[in-house]
């Protein structure tokens, strides 16, 4: 079966990454307190897809006392990649440490490739649109500041979790789930300190996030993993 990953491994990854996040946050917090700062970023995104595995429609053969499965047809099910948009609000709580809230909207598709019909119907692929909304909260830790002539480049790691809402085409059905994420990226700030004027409050940001989600649209109860890649512009409000 395609698409399912082992839960112990994903838990290990999450635990290790969360540990790294905590160490980094404590280190940064210990260095100094800082003025409050609010960053708002709007990004375009690509939400990657993932396999949901193979599903086989079977009925029961006539063997006695128990029959063997007879396949009506097979289907390979997947969520396809799609475009998205993400709005992030980051509140600096310590120097280099932000509490961050993210709202995301992605438009993906759920697809089933049908094959091996018992009456030799031709293979085909069927699909429908899936609109996904996420509301997540987490922490972002800036790892360093690289001073460049055109501004400051700040690599960061982040992590958190939240709520997933998946809306089927024509809003026929809404399904919900939960996400946790780990990510990394770069911020570019026109000026990291003492901003003067709107132009110097501008920033750009690129993110790669590893998402692990449970529930929602699925063919079983497995945890699913996928990536989102986003890039956008923002502003420091104060």
């Amino acid at each position: 079966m395609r698409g399912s990953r082992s839960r112990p491994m994903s838990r290990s990854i999450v635990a290790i990454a969360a540990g790294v996040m905590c160490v980094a946050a404590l280190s940064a917090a210990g260095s100094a307190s800082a003025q409050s700062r609010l960053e708002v970023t709007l990004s375009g995104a690509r939400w990657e897809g993932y396999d949901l595995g193979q599903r086989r429609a079977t009925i029961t053969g006539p063997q006695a006392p128990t029959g063997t499965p007879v396949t009506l047809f097979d289907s390979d099910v997947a969520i396809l990649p799609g475009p998205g948009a993400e709005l992030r609000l980051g509140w600096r709580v310590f120097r280099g440490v932000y509490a961050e809230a993210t709202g995301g909207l992605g438009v993906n598709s759920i697809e089933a490739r049908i094959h091996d019909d018992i009456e030799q119907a031709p293979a085909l692929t069927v699909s429908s649109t899936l609109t996904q909304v996420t509301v997540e909260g987490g922490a972002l830790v800036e790892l360093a500041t690289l001073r460049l002539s055109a501004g400051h480049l700040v690599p960061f790691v982040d992590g958190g979790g939240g709520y997933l809402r998946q809306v089927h085409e024509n809003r026929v059905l809404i399904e919900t789930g939960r996400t946790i994420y780990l990510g990394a990226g770069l911020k570019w700030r026109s000026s990291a300190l003492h901003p003067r004027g709107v132009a110097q409050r501008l920033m750009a940001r690129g993110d790669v996030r590893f998402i692990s989600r449970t529930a929602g649209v699925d063919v079983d109860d497995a945890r699913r993993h996928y990536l989102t890649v986003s890039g956008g512009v923002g502003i420091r409000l104060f």
Partner: protein
Amino acid sequence: MKRAILVTAALIALATAPGAAYMRFGVSINGTNTILRWPGAIPYRVSDADLATGISAADFDQALQRAFQAWQGVASATIQFTRQGFTSGRPSDDDSSNVFGFERRADLERTLAVTSYTIDVINGEIIEADVQFNAAQPWSVADGGSLTGFDLQAVAQHEIGHVLGLGHSAVGETEVSGTGRRLIASGAVMFPIAFPRGSLEGRTLRSDDIAGVSDLYKPASGGPRLGGLSGHVRKNGKGVFGAHVVAYGLRSGQIVGGYSINDDGDYVIGGLEPGSYVVRVEPLDDGDVESFFEDTRRVDADFAVTYYAKIAVAPRNGVAADIDVAVRSR
């Protein structure tokens, strides 16, 4: 005085029939179609007259009780049977009571059992439902089944499905074998061809059976919020009568069928868990169409298996519309 009509449905051993789905029985009362269902608890009696060879009254009674329990155990439906003990009466008696018993019908060499209803044609209420098991057939009540006889509990479960108001499902596959048909596979207790001797598979209600009875006997409150799919089957722009429409739940694994039941090609499949479904349409082309429809001349079986072009989604507490499938002649 109430007038009554008799409706029968038979479970067949190695005889006819194809396909996929549950169907609800209905009668036309003054031009209005009325679905057959019981308004409350369903009383029944067990006939101890003329039992089949090797089957005691206690064996028969216990097999029936297990079969009733299987239907009562459907969590998404409200079904209650009330056992009223043994009777020396026969299922063929016109006594306004529901009797399960044996009748020796050597002339019906392929028929295992028959359910008959007597229906008030004024208001559509069921006056009586009787089940006759054919004593001329070999039967088994062995826990592990026996190759010497058909499993009595399994056949009773099929007939009790009829008593509840379910027609034949076409979720199954057969192939021509001599003058009859051979069962390749079945996906419903309500499939009209029984599993062979020794098989215990007929004791397990399938998703098609459960969806059907859940649609008929929805709990008044507190039940699961099930959904459905509806649409049309058309060929050359015209509705197809008698097409078999199967919904396969990508998450639930449910395989539930329905039929297009009029000349507009309308179909509805209820009792589905909310979620994503693949919808497959096939003709009723490999067996006794009369197992499913009285008016077999209207059934159009001249088209190829066709899938709905999208993934269909069954909502909670509602029926998705316009799941339309255009089929082509073979």
